[in-house]
């Protein structure tokens, strides 16, 4: 019996006639990096959206640390310790880098319905913010307006915000997309460090990255789970080669 952080049981979600996730039953083990790959439109983002509460499943169950979180709203799920980053950059464009992370960090207060003490005096939030900035490598851009940063930097910020909420489980939707090679390496390094004491669910098309940090792999095609298993097994799986990777050289 593995120690699973998150479990989905026969998750279904369809849009109109289109079945985006089809009977997805998966188990995510504590402390592991579990990557989900699959062709475009396979339903990966939809799955993440279901896990984070951005979408409600048609049926099926999601269990987080044994607790049923199936129909909880995104904010509740976030509070339970599931953080996510978005495939399409989703930040506070007019805020500075620092403020972006601040708002994220502040969400871990018992309540932010506080009207009296200036927020700036909250030590704990301050530290969390700094740490997040440090981690995502944006300390030097702390005062830049997010909208004035380049696309890649915005992607870094996206991750920084998630980290500022200090989640236990991280849902990462293509964190490397749009990043330059160097930044990619940095982020991969970061993810590897995070993997030490977090559970990561990672969607990524960059196979080098996937193979270098993931321990388990799930391949989705057309809303369905095609295969789940260790890296080596998936890498050598014929079905996966055909459905996703194409010729082997790309995977190396």
């Amino acid at each position, binding site marked *: 019996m593995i120690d699973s952080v998150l479990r989905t049981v026969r998750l279904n979600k369809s849009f109109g006639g289109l079945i985006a996730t089809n009977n997805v039953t998966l188990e995510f083990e504590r402390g592991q990096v579990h990557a989900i790959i699959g*062709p475009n439109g396979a339903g990966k983002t939809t799955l993440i959206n279901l896990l984070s509460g951005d979408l409600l499943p048609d049926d099926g169950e999601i269990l987080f640390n044994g607790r049923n979180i199936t129909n909880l709203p995104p904010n509740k799920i976030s509070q339970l310790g599931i953080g996510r980053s978005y495939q399409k950059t989703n930040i506070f464009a007019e805020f500075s880098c620092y403020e972006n992370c601040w708002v994220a960090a502040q969400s871990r207060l018992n309540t932010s319905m506080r009207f009296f003490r200036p927020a700036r005096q909250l030590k704990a939030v301050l530290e969390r913010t700094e740490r997040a900035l440090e981690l995502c490598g944006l300390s030097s851009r702390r005062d830049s307006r997010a909208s004035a940063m380049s696309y890649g930097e915005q992607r870094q910020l996206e991750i920084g915000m998630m980290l500022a909420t200090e989640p236990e489980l991280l849902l990462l939707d293509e964190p490397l997309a749009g990043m*330059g090679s160097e*930044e990619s390496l940095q982020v991969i390094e970061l993810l590897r460090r995070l993997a030490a004491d977090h559970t990561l669910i990672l969607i990524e098309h960059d196979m080098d990255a996937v193979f270098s940090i993931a321990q388990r792999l799930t391949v989705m095609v057309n809303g369905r789970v095609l295969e789940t298993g260790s890296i080596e097994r998936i890498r050598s799986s014929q079905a996966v080669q055909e459905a996703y990777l194409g010729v082997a050289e790309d995977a190396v």
Partner: protein
Amino acid sequence: MADQTQDLIIDAQGLQTYYGDSHILHGISFSIARGETLSLMGRNGMGKTTLLRSLLGLTPPREGTVKIYGQDMTGAPAHKIVRQGIAFVPEDRGIFPNLTVKENLVMTSRSGPDGRKDWDLTRVLDTFPRLAQRMNHMGNHLSGGEQQMLTVGRALMTNPELLILDEATEGLAPLIRKEIWSVVRQIKESGIAAVIVDKDLNALLELADRNIIISKGQIVYEGSSADLAANPEIHTRHLGV
């Protein structure tokens, strides 16, 4: 001499571009000839996108000139520049969320400046079969990769002389990414020029005739793929790989 400038699709000199007060491009000169494939590299935030936007008139440069087919179009509105036969795939995709896939594609379909009509709906759908299955879906209901295919398809539908791809393969599955590179190869063969921003160095080196590396708003390297491939210290210095 005159012939040579005629052969340049874009010929930009001394571009200085700002966003408000922040100075991004510091005197970049850039040109691309007919049929040429050019790669544009650089770390995040170095000004690649800004350069492309300056060329297209989306963020007009404060100083410098932009000539399109030898004609000075500095400061001209973007649509005039684009109409000369340029197609742009922006990094944020720019899908119209309130239009269906089909509408996104046919909305600006046209034949090229010389009347060429290599790309039409059928061919685009053949290239990206996924789109054919999603014809009546709204733009904002597509997956990230599907949106990416759609922007590339939409750009091709204008039958350009020059295709500008700003991180066009971002978020695409390996198979589709290969599809895109083969499209680029195809259009290269049909004599269409391309400017490509991408982080897939290997693919770029294989495709590009010429490579440009930008750092802090300046061109720090320009050379052939062979040269670049032979000098790995250049990428280590400017690209970090």
